[in-house]
């Protein structure tokens, strides 16, 4: 099947981001915290994207920051995915009070915007990587739950599932061997969207000063560090912002392509 140009571009850019994130330590020209120039120097041969608010190389910080951003987003979307899809399948297969209980709980969690829940919770919990990943993963699991429950509901009435039940297969067989393989393609596209949502979420939290804390760096936090320069015409803050936008758009392009060739089911970006 021929791949549309937009999906190809998205795939290449996503791959490039992942490559930089994995090999950040070797690619980045300078260490994360090295002060090596003047304040807010414009892009030059030595510093391709210029320097930041205290004279650190922006490109290097962005490569290191990308590693943290992508790692946290990936970890939380894996969590939301594992938890959400397992519970979603379980609700669809078991039905009855399991389904009712889980669905109402999810309704309740989705009744308020995730950001507000996260802010309330973060006012009590210590802010560190584990807590952030757990919060984002749990909040986002609700959306995966709804999608995978809907997909599994459609599959659970298929003849082959009925046949498996009649053969006397257990519930875990039905979930992992019958439903999961058939639900995979809408879920893969959904994974892309969840990953992007997690990138945007962690960046927003860091921007608000409630996400990844210094000395670690991430893109949202870098926008926060350099935002004051914008008033004086220093574009340092725009570089990490651009990285967030570019990553979001490229993953979206890939997810759209996967969705368009598989199914009409689609999860929203949501609040």
């Amino acid at each position: 099947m021929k791949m549309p140009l937009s999906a190809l571009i998205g795939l290449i850019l996503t791959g490039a981001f992942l490559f930089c994130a994995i090999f950040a330590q070797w690619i980045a020209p300078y260490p994360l915290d090295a002060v090596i120039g003047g304040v807010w120097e414009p892009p030059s041969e030595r510093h391709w994207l210029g320097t930041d608010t205290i004279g650190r190389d922006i490109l290097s910080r962005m490569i290191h920051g990308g590693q943290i951003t992508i790692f946290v987003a990936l970890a939380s979307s894996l969590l939301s995915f594992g938890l959400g899809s397992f519970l979603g399948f379980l609700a669809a297969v078991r039905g009855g009070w399991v389904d009712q209980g889980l669905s109402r709980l999810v309704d309740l969690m989705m009744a308020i915007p995730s950001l507000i829940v996260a802010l309330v919770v973060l006012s009590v919990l210590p802010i560190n990587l584990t807590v952030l990943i757990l919060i984002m993963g749990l909040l986002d699991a609700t959306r995966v739950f709804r999608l995978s429950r809907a997909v599994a509901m459609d599959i659970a009435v298929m003849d082959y599932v009925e046949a498996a039940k009649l053969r006397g297969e257990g519930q875990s067989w039905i979930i992992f061997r019958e439903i999961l393989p058939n639900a995979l393609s809408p879920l893969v596209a959904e994974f892309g969207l969840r990953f992007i949502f997690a990138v945007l979420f962690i960046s927003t939290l860091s921007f608000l000063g409630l996400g990844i804390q210094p000395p670690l760096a991430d893109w949202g936090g870098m926008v926060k560090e350099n935002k004051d320069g914008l008033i004086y015409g220093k574009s340092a803050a725009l570089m990490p912002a651009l990285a967030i936008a570019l990553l979001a758009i490229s993953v979206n392009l890939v997810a759209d392509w996967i969705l368009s060739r598989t199914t009409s089911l689609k999860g929203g970006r949501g609040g």
Partner: protein
Amino acid sequence: MHPILKMVAQRVALGLLLLLAVSLLIFLGTEALPGDVAQAILGQSATPEALANMREALGLNQPAYIRYFQWLGGILTGDFGVALTNGQDIGQAIGQRLGNTLFLAACAAAISVPLAILLGLVAARYNGRWPDKVISGITLSTISLPEFVAAYFVIFLLTQVIPIFQPVAMVFPGMSFLDRLQAVALPVIVLVLVVLAHMMRMTRAAILNVMQSAYIETAELKGLSPMRVIWQHAFPNAIAPIISVVVLNLAYLVVGVVVVEVVFGYNALGQYLVDHVAKRDLPVVQAVGLIFAAVYIGLNILADVISIIANPRLRHPK
């Protein structure tokens, strides 16, 4: 009882129940988490006696459910308690800021709703041709931007590249209405960008859905102009889904204002919330969180009620 009234009453009752459950979640959820408010105020070096005294003073020794009812009762009678960090009355602080937040959100809504519907109509009219592609392409790229990223692009563009605005949005009491409008222009532009895309896409989808009906074909065969077919025949029939989508997206402004207020240093409710999360001032966070949740749930109920009322099958039961 008229069935439609019954459905609306049911929906509202369900919403209030949901709000109650959310208040429980906000209050008890933060209670159940590990972390000690007294410790948070006094810091790690506090002596055990000081901690015990602080707990006593905050009433933390009472069981959680009693404190929950006290808290809820207080809020229902307009008493939000006092902030831990400065002892200020929370109700008063919210009162000063709520107006600013509502002003910002109202401006954004007043611009984005007509604009989204107009763009949606145009995109539907030229479905698949270049105006549709341009509108859809632009809105699609704004959909994938977080609010603060969109905000800094807009700031850079409109204060540096084309310097027509101030990058901070200061409002203070006694400002004239026009000055206020000018002060919030940039944040409003950002908020409009953020909510426009979803609204416009759903408007377009709703219109295109209706365009497949037989009566549209009749109208076209009568020789009506395409814009007239859309405006007079398709739009009235697509209005219910459009309104409910518009209201749902206004609920999304709740998240938008929090971030945008911080970006522009706009002194209002969202800024107040974020500041006090960082200061670990739980009573403030709970109160403001509940207000945001209430607005969000309220708008969701409104969207449902409107789509019930706008459904002719329910309005005229057989």
